[in-house]
């Protein structure tokens, strides 16, 4: 069974691999998940955790995943906003874990916005 002391092994491994987060904030990509009551009940928590898992798996050291409160669009939750430096904010709606993975691969890694997941006129 793991104990808190086992975290030292992770620390040593990370220090040797130098996979620390990029400390240069000017190229930090921020991925923000709406976590107000409606976001959470619509499924924001698994989306948030999928984003964390993918960022870890792909060792994306310049990506920070954060939470925010109400984004004022209950019907469109879960909502994920992506902030790439020097680019306009991109807002994804009705996100689930699968879409979250696509957002990481296509948008964050390859720089292509996932157009299918943006707000549509009928929303």
């Amino acid at each position, binding site marked *: *069974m*793991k*104990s*808190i*002391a*086992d*975290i*030292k092994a*992770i*620390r040593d491994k*990370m*220090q040797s691999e130098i*996979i*620390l*987060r990029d400390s240069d904030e000017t190229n930090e990509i921020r991925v923000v998940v709406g*976590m*107000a*009551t*409606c976001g*959470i*009940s619509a499924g924001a*928590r*698994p989306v*948030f*955790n999928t984003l*964390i*898992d993918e*960022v*870890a798996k792909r060792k994306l050291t310049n990506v*920070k*995943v*954060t*939470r925010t*409160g*109400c*984004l*004022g669009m*209950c019907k469109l939750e879960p909502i994920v906003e992506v902030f790439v430096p020097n680019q306009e904010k991109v807002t994804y709606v009705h996100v689930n874990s699968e879409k979250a993975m696509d957002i990481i691969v296509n948008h964050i890694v390859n720089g292509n916005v996932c157009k299918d997941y943006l707000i549509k006129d009928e929303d």
Partner: protein
Amino acid sequence: MRELSLNILDIAENSFKAEATEIEIVVKADANFLTISVIDNGVGMDEEFLKRVTDPFTTSRTTRKVGMGIPLIKMQAELCEGSFDIQSTKWVGTTLTASFKTNHIDRPPLGDIAETIVSLIADLKGAELTFRYELEGEEPFVLSTKEVKEELGDTIPIDTPDVLIFIKDLIKENIKLSIGGFSL
């Protein structure tokens, strides 16, 4: 909410919004009751506001008129023959407690509490978080971000994804999700 751990995440968000620097989440269970407490040292609420806070038309948010989080957990607790209490002092902090009859047919499962705690640790916004899990007859499990940070030292931030995944596994391995034959 489908899981009580989602209510916990939602209630803890209030503590972050209240700019708390110390937040404690306690989950306690015995054969009779499952009790959730969220304790913070945030900005608190004055008496008059506190009286209205369990009413779904109270919120300090501007984007939507009604706050649902507190009325929701209160309603769920009462539906499960439990109890609800919120104490707050302006500029001192807030303590919310909700209990649920452990074997009540309408009680949502506790669900993925590890994922809830890790979602909070991933973005601590300057706060320290303590999670206590106490099942009757078992050693309590305590995770404090202060302690984890001490173990990590200065070079590795606690919100590094690899660390978060470790913490999630650590919680999952160390807590038991059933009591007296009832699944929590």
